[in-house]
């Protein structure tokens, strides 16, 4: 392909390359799509997610911005008002906060303030989560800080195929979407079929069927949850793993169906459990499934402490052992 080299038949891609393919396809398909952010051009982003895009689509469409996150999102809003569909990259989770004001006070609310007359099709891509041995501010999971805000949609793929499809759908969406990419999974490979038909963007998915307990995860913790299900199976426990995929809205119907079957729910996310997504899920599922629950909904996740130095991050993260401990505790009721 000339400008676009979007794959046409199923290919095995690492998650980072799947994001690249989705951006490439979107840039190819719609001249209004722009990619913008720090170092996204020549460098191809610090994770090489935008590798080669500037070369193929030019500096006017794949834009290296000044080092200013409020500027990136604020101008993305303006570009969207002018009819563009900006896909803005925030280099790391911890660096979104200079843009928090623009996202919360402007991006999220503008459609409502204009009584629906204007649309804000802005996608904000944010690599998030820990486990990569990084310094401060490079390992955080701030999704709940955004989920609390009406007007934002929030999704996170756990695998390359979802990364491809969910990003394409996010770019097509007329609402602002925050697209959290699990950076620790950037190199995980999966088959991506660009000619397939994707499911709905905000649907959760049962990724492994089971009968004894539902393990709900999203983004980086899905892989851990699947490992936990393998380990539990060896001990004769059957876990159903649900990939939540969307943090706002949340597909409670799918979760409910699973919990009605298993009677138990454990939620695993890297973000602090205090006021985290798990709290919302626990409350709603308790309401919806009160008579089916054999145990309280339990949460496994980060602590109410700053994300720790890399050498002890495994203690903070909901790894295999801590997830299994949560499973054991739920089963013990």
């Amino acid at each position, binding site marked *: 392909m000339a400008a676009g080299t979007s794959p046409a038949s199923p290919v095995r891609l690492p998650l980072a390359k799947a994001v690249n393919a989705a951006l490439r396809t979107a840039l190819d398909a719609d001249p209004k799509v722009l990619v913008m952010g*720090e*170092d996204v*051009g*020549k*460098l*191809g982003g*610090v994770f090489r997610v935008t590798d080669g895009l500037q070369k193929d689509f030019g500096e006017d469409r794949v834009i*290296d*911005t*000044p*080092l*200013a996150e*409020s*500027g990136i999102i604020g101008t993305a809003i303006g570009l969207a008002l002018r009819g563009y569909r900006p896909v803005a990259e925030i280099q790391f989770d*911890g*660096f979104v*906060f*200079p843009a928090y004001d623009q996202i919360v006070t402007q991006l999220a609310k503008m459609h409502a303030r204009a009584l629906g007359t204007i649309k804000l099709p802005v996608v904000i891509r944010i690599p998030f989560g820990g486990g990569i*041995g*990084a*310094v*401060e*501010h490079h390992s955080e999971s701030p999704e709940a800080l955004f989920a609390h805000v009406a007007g934002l949609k929030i999704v996170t793929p756990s695998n390359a195929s979802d990364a491809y499809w969910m990003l394409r759908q996010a770019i097509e969406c007329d609402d602002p979407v925050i697209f959290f990419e699990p950076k620790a999974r950037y190199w995980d490979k999966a088959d991506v079929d660009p000619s397939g038909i994707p499911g709905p963007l905000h649907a959760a998915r049962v990724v492994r069927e089971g009968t004894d307990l539902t393990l709900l995860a999203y983004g980086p913790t899905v892989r851990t949850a699947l490992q936990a299900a393998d380990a539990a199976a060896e001990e004769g426990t059957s876990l159903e793993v649900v990939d939540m995929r969307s943090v706002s809205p949340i597909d409670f119907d799918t979760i409910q169906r699973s919990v009605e079957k298993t009677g138990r729910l454990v939620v695993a996310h890297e973000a602090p459990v*205090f006021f985290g997504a798990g709290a919302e899920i626990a409350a709603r599922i308790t309401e919806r499934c009160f008579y089916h629950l054999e145990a309280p909904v339990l949460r496994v996740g980060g*602590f*109410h*402490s*700053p994300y*720790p*130095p*890399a*050498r*002890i*991050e495994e*203690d*903070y993260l909901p790894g295999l*052992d*801590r997830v299994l*401990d949560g499973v054991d505790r739920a089963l013990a009721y």
Partner: protein
Amino acid sequence: MTVESTAARGKPRRSTNRSTTTTRRKPRQPRDGMVQLLTPEGERVEHPDYALDIDADTLRGLYRDMALTRRFDAEATALQRQGELGLWPSLLGQEAAQIGSGRALRPQDYVFPTYREHGVAWCRGVDPTKLLGMFRGVNHGGWDPNTNNFHLYTIVIGSQVLHATGYAMGVAKDGADAAVLAYFGDGASSQGDVAEAFTFAAVYNAPVVFFCQNNQWAISEPTERQTRVPLYQRAAGYGFPGVRVDGNDVLAVLAVTRAAAEQARSGQGPTLVEAFTYRMGAHTTSDDPTRYRSDDELVSWEAKDPLLRLRRHLERLDAADEAYFAALDEESDTLARRVREAIRTMPDPDPMSAFEHVYADGHSLVDEERAQYAAYVASFADREEN
């Protein structure tokens, strides 16, 4: 150390009008162009605004500071390659900007660094091994800022420039005789925080020196991606002086920073110093600059190397002989050895330490989670015993 005298020379001049509300004396407007006192060939030149009377001892001291800093930095890069550090942001090429400005300060001045100010840390007396902790991943800081008046490294670009300004506002309120140095990069100059810091410093006449190391790159983005005018000229729009100094000329940086710090201490408000320099290495050990910049550029800056030019100058003056440089090499090796040993024996933190210092006054949820996690960890020990 010989260079201690350098720092002490700036005469304390107590200001009479340090109140933040009084009008300030009009600061001297520096002229355009780049201040240079030492050519790349090591020739001493004069500048009408920045006289510098400096003895051989001090010159040797500055060279020693730069050489040791460079050696330390190279060792840290090597340690990253060996897996001892997760990441290292090298200061290679910026030694003069950092040593010149660091040595312009007095003990009571206060420094707010980015993550690359290893040379300034050295001048402040921070043990170099302490800089490694956060890059090894054993802590998020590693030193007490108030011991050396050197704040923690800040990773979020631009944030510390506001902190420096606020600190300086406090200094002014106290009527104290100190300047505050805010370090930041050319990339950082685009951040709203930095623009806001300029505004606050200007309207409150805060005794802060904005020290921008324009090393030409913000990761892969050249300075032209951040500004269309020379960065020092931005100061004019805020109403305080801005000056560009040859950032690879340790003498010019020393003189310019000393003057700016004295202006701050004497109640004449902020100055923006743009140290024009070059990041000779990668952004960090994770970066691959071959993707975005040419070798030619690097070569042209190698000719302006900050150590080389001071060495040439010392040789011209006959102020340092082979024996001096040999002894310095040995001292560098000793420092590198000490750093290596320190890193290899640096203990991992206790996982329970993650629950410490979250709050000054404690927090019941932290206590609860600490207890839960301790019980969880203990449960493994129990299992092993059984």
